[in-house]
């Protein structure tokens, strides 16, 4: 067993840390959030140049083979700065699914340009009724000549407005909520028949509601096998969950540091408020929570490529439960210990708090993953 970072991994960590320090000051982030896309093309170009977009992929696929630990390192630092560039939808989800299930031709057409920074992706899986259930899909794809025609609706699709291609989870067979009969399609974001309603999210990301009205795609748009899309998307979402957990640990470190600093400097009753034992103990609990979060994230990152699917699913759900719990504790505590300042838009704490809250809601909240973990543990 060895839980320390290699020299290469440390270098990566320092590189991302530097980027965040230089480009993601609180004021800068506000500007980025308010910009046209909600992220900066120049930052994305820098990611490509530094090889960050290649991190999780094998050398065979044109990547640099850092695997899930590489993703963890990047996402953790991104969490510290609340980075807005769409690494998760593009690299972890889109890139991840193409690497896992794509043909050689698809990898060449999609993954290679993505690694060069020339393509972005979005994953459209959620529907109004889905409520965290990945298999609850009713958007239909029907055969049309050699290809397919897609009709239906998807919601809260992160990065849809910037994505060159949208990867759509569609029903090709079976009944609502059945895992069999789901197929993944790679659809041009500007294809005829697509209408989007774009909006910012609570935590300054961008997402969209999308209507697909008889959107035609060729047979080569199928990613993986027809009717066999579910395991691909399930694993991709598990990897995304672990990446999100890493982001959340970064958020927790940052929000804890800001709070610690605040209670050491804010004075009431003639002393720094950090002199009050009730705040000291709460601060200690924040640190303990962040440590547990980091531990579960590391464990999940180490298990997420296990051969046994149950091991992978349990790892992702287990980490997500911990993140939900720790993120809520650190977020609420930070706001509370800042007093009135904590509930304003003016300090970074409320922004970390909002991101941590939204991370809990993404891909299933604490309750959902506790139930999933429990069911998997009983089954195993």
């Amino acid at each position: 067993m060895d839980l320390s970072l290699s020299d290469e991994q440390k270098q990566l960590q320092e590189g991302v840390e530097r980027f965040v320090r230089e480009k993601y000051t609180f004021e800068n982030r506000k500007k980025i959030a308010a910009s046209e896309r909600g992220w900066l093309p120049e930052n994305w170009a820098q990611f490509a140049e530094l090889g960050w977009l290649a991190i999780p992929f094998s050398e065979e696929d044109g990547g640099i083979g850092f695997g899930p630990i590489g993703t963890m390192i990047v996402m953790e630092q991104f969490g510290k700065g609340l980075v807005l560039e769409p690494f998760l939808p593009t690299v972890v989800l889109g890139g991840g699914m193409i690497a896992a299930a794509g043909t050689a031709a698809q990898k060449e057409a999609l993954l290679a340009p993505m690694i060069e920074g020339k393509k972005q992706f979005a994953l459209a899986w959620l529907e109004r009724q889905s409520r965290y259930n990945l298999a609850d899909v009713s958007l239909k794809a029907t055969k049309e000549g050699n290809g397919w025609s897609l009709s239906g609706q998807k919601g809260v699709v992160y990065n849809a407005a910037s994505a060159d291609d949208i990867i759509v989870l569609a029903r090709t067979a079976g009944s609502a909520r059945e895992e069999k009969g789901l197929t993944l399609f790679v659809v041009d974001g500007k294809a005829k028949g697509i209408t989007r309603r774009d909006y910012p999210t609570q935590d300054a990301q961008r997402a969209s509601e999308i209507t697909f009205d008889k959107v035609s795609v060729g047979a080569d748009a199928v990613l993986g096998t027809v009717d066999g899309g579910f395991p691909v998307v399930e694993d991709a979402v598990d990897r995304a969950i672990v990446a999100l957990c890493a982001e959340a640990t970064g958020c927790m470190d940052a929000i804890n540091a800001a709070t610690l600093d605040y209670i050491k400097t804010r004075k009431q009753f003639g002393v720094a408020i950090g002199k009050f034992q009730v705040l000291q103990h709460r601060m200690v609990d924040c640190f303990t929570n962040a440590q547990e979060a980091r531990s579960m994230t590391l464990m999940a990152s180490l298990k997420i490529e296990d051969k046994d699917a149950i091991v992978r699913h349990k790892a992702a759900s287990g980490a997500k439960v911990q993140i939900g719990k720790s993120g809520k504790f650190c977020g609420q505590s930070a706001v509370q210990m800042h007093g009135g300042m904590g509930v304003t838009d003016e300090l970074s704490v409320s922004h970390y708090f909002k991101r941590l809250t939204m991370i809990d809601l993404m891909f299933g909240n604490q309750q959902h993953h506790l139930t999933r973990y429990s069911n998997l543990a009983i089954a195993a």
Partner: protein
Amino acid sequence: MDLALKPEHKAFADEVRAFARENLSPATREKTFSGKHYDKADHVVWQQALGKKGWLTYTWPKKFGGPGWDVTQRFLFENVLAEEGAPRIIPFGVKMVGPVIYTFGTDEQKERFLPGIRSSEVAWCQGYSEPGAGSDLASLRTRAVRDGDHYIVNGQKTWTSFAHWGDWIFCLVRTNPDVKPQEGISFLLIDMKTPGVTVRPIIMLDGAHHVNDVFLDNVKVPVANRIGAENEGWTCAKFLLANERLGIAEVPASKRGVRSLRELNDDPALAEKIADVDLQVQALEMSELRALSAMAMGGQPGPEVSTLKVRGSEIQQRIAELAMEAVGEYAAPYQPGMLFHDTNETPVGPDHAPPAAPRYFNMRKTSIYGGSTEVQKNIVSKAILGL
């Protein structure tokens, strides 16, 4: 002892309900149930209707223009109005400065200020907190220096709720810097139109504007606007805080919150969490009723109101949290248009989605304002437990 209502109380509840249905604008009511923010007019129109009826100052003694209701009537009044979707009565005039004025003010001050509060023609705000004086209120530094018949006031108030809607602000100011902090404070009423008063908005984490900084720059305030004796403002301040904490538990609104959670939720995992908070609300309500009934026997609210404030804020926060949980991923879209403006747009996601996350964020304030949870617990441990 009996929980059942007497027939005359049932008739009273019917009367209140009929009044609300007749006088509460449907648009205002709709905002309550959809979680939209009220405009100033929503509050004013409603409060003025209550004022005309003589019900706005329902907690006041009869001789100052209250309706002279008993504890049960007040309880029914608050609950029926919450059920009907009425906005809560803005407390600064009715529940805060009004009672200070009729308890500590001169006859002339009572005549001058109470009618405008009873009718809701004058809007008040509370100038207690300062950047350096939050939990440690007595360390406030806004200075009032006597100059003939006036005080010249300089300083900064912060977190002032609804200062941007306010006609008048009641302020704690320092009139003597050379004694123990509590002993050099006076209670002043300041017309917001006086030259030198500037209001700057503070935007909250949910994007809302409720609170403000208020800058006081050489503001000339007549000595006749001081309530109580010079340097004895702390007595008024503490009296007011105890009243503030009593009203702040917001039990009727929480009961409404639990009801709408039940209506929206179809997830069995959530049902038990809702039941749990429902029971918490019941315990709180019963504790509040016990306190009120003890007060009806005579006396002011004691330090135990701090426990009601702590639990009331935790419960409000929990209800908001569960409402967000019920919405799931559709809590993510930020839809300020649906919260702050009249719009014909349809929301992204279910109808109850737009306010869910902003409300959860915003409700974190309840354990901070009106004396933070930590400060309330300090009060209980000192005053009740003798620690």
